[in-house]
């Protein structure tokens, strides 16, 4: 039963709504994070009362959080509260929830915050996409993260955990949860789970499965991705996504599995998900200085690898922008874990604050490159340009370009 909010909670919400209005009016972003921080400062457990009485789905993992959360929201249909501004920590959640009274909530959650947010929001469904190395100089190392997830996922009986059966670290994290719906979805990146998360021996892989001599193995899935379709609980669905890439098929399959767990009609949800063409500026075509850009957010090896596979092998120029600010991680050593060798035969234009790190990496990969100190040096292009950028570089290019 939902309790009425305390005077302190009401004050927190009022303060944050006021701040959000002011910052929107002054044109300085949506201001949600600042508003959320003020709200939490006044009432530290504001998230508990804001989430109470609503049906929440949380989405976490290294790659695909933003897209999958957007697919959950779109597939649910109608008015869904979601933190679509990219702020995926409690201040962003508080701000999103204070902005709407809709009973349906889809929240993207930073991997390190999942436990804290779960205990406050008490979600009906938690979606665990994947775990791989990302910004290691500031985030926890991936195995520690999997261990922490495992510690918080065993709590509630009525909670559904939708988890990727092809990611051994995710399987380990969800192995104590009571109600898991395993998803057999495309997960090409295996470099971070070569050794068993339970006992550290080498994992064996064969015929799309994996196992360890200690008994830890791929669980039986309820959802299975197929070429142009999927099966959920024995029922087959055709699927033609507008979004590109196998990784988006995985995101969609997990979003649908989560929606099925809160009794949304899968056929109807699928039709709404198929119609999604862009998420937070990603996968969209943009215009900049007479050129058409396909803007791709690539901020870690697994994400980069998946996106490199979508580059047409026709020798077209590729632009890549790399920064190393706080949001990107200060250490760009992960560039050596990205299989840039796939770009041999393309000319790559190196942009961003760490363009020399990128150019050196490409040089050792045998990929032809040019270092661009000023964006005015970039060549004209008749065809759309694939522009890969990590987090803050992506934001810069989004701001610099306009929608087609």
């Amino acid at each position, binding site marked *: 039963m939902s309790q009425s909010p305390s005077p302190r909670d009401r004050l927190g919400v009022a303060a944050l709504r006021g701040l959000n209005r002011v910052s929107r009016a002054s044109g300085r972003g949506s201001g949600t994070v600042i508003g959320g921080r003020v709200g939490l400062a006044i009432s530290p457990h504001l998230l508990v009362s804001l989430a109470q009485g609503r049906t929440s789905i949380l989405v976490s993992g290294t790659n695909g959080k933003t897209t999958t959360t957007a697919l959950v929201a779109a597939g649910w249909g109608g008015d869904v509260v979601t933190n679509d501004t990219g702020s995926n920590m409690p201040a962003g959640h508080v701000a999103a929830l204070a902005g709407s009274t809709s009973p349906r909530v889809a929240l993207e959650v930073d991997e390190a915050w999942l436990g804290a947010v779960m205990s406050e929001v008490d979600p009906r469904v938690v979606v665990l996409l994947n775990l791989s190395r990302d910004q290691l100089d500031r985030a926890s190392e991936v195995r520690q993260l999997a261990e922490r997830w495992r510690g918080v996922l065993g709590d509630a009986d009525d909670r559904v955990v939708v988890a990727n059966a092809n990611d051994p670290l995710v399987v380990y994290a969800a192995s104590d949860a009571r109600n898991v719906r395993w998803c057999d979805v495309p997960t090409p990146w295996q470099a971070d789970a070569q050794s068993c998360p339970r006992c550290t021996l080498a994992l064996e892989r064969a015929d799309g499965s994996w196992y360890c001599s200690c008994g830890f193995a791929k669980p039986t899935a309820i959802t299975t991705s197929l070429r142009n379709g999927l099966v959920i609980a024995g029922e087959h669905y055709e699927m033609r996504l507008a979004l590109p890439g196998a990784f988006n098929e995985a995101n969609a399959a997990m979003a649908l599995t989560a929606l099925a767990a809160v009794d949304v009609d899968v056929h109807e949800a699928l039709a709404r998900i198929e119609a999604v063409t862009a998420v937070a500026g990603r996968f969209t075509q943009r215009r900049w200085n007479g050129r058409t850009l396909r803007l791709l957010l690539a901020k870690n090896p697994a994400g980069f690898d998946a996106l490199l596979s979508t580059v047409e092998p026709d020798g077209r120029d590729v632009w890549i922008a790399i920064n190393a600010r706080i949001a990107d991680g200060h250490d760009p050593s992960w560039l050596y874990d990205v299989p840039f060798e796939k770009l041999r035969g393309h000319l790559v234009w190196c942009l961003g604050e760490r363009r*020399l790190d990128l150019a050196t990496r490409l040089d050792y990969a045998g990929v032809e490159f040019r270092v661009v100190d000023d964006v005015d040096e970039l060549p004209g292009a008749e065809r759309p340009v694939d522009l890969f950028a990590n987090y803050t570089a992506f934001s810069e290019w989004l701001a610099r370009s306009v929608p087609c």
Partner: protein
Amino acid sequence: MLTIANLVPDLLGTYGDGGNALVLAQRARARGEETLLVSMALNDELPDASIYLLGGGEDGPQRLACDVLARSSLASRARDGATVVAVCAGLQILGTTFCVEGDDRYAGLGLCDVTTARGSIRSVGELRVRVGERLLVGFENHGGRTTLGDGVLPFGRVEHGRGNDGVYDGFRAGTLWATYAHGPVLAQNPWFADAVLSSVLGYELEPLDSVADLLYEERCRAIRS
């Protein structure tokens, strides 16, 4: 034939450490050396190589890597003159003891008189080390405090960051090279890569102009002492 072996990268390869092996191979090839780059997986025998590379890893994988390498012929090959370049967790494994999972002490390969205890803080950030005329620039992320025994020389003196103990970074002992600057430290410091290659090939290498020199200069300017 120059063979360069990357050791158990599935356990020790957390920070793009595989880049170090790639850099050595490509810079040797650019000098006309026929070079083979191999990788030793968890269940493989130790390959026959002139240079062995050890990267960084988390506690569990570090312990397992140490077990695997202790059973291999790495120690005897190193004593017979094979070169070993180790970074981060790899540096700790070469010594006599290191700490994992709290303060549990674990026996290393014992190739030199070097011990690592759990440091009071984790060291995360840019590292700048004076090595003679040169600078070593890179990034460190570790929780160790490393002490060198008699006869083991530090690789260099720390000008920014922490290294072994806030004063020195890494060590040199015979054919062993070790630093806390994790992978791909050889990409950021082409002189370091060439020093290793030169020591193995036995001759002075011709300079190799490449974008890596620009990267080195830029990082030396960016990381202030």
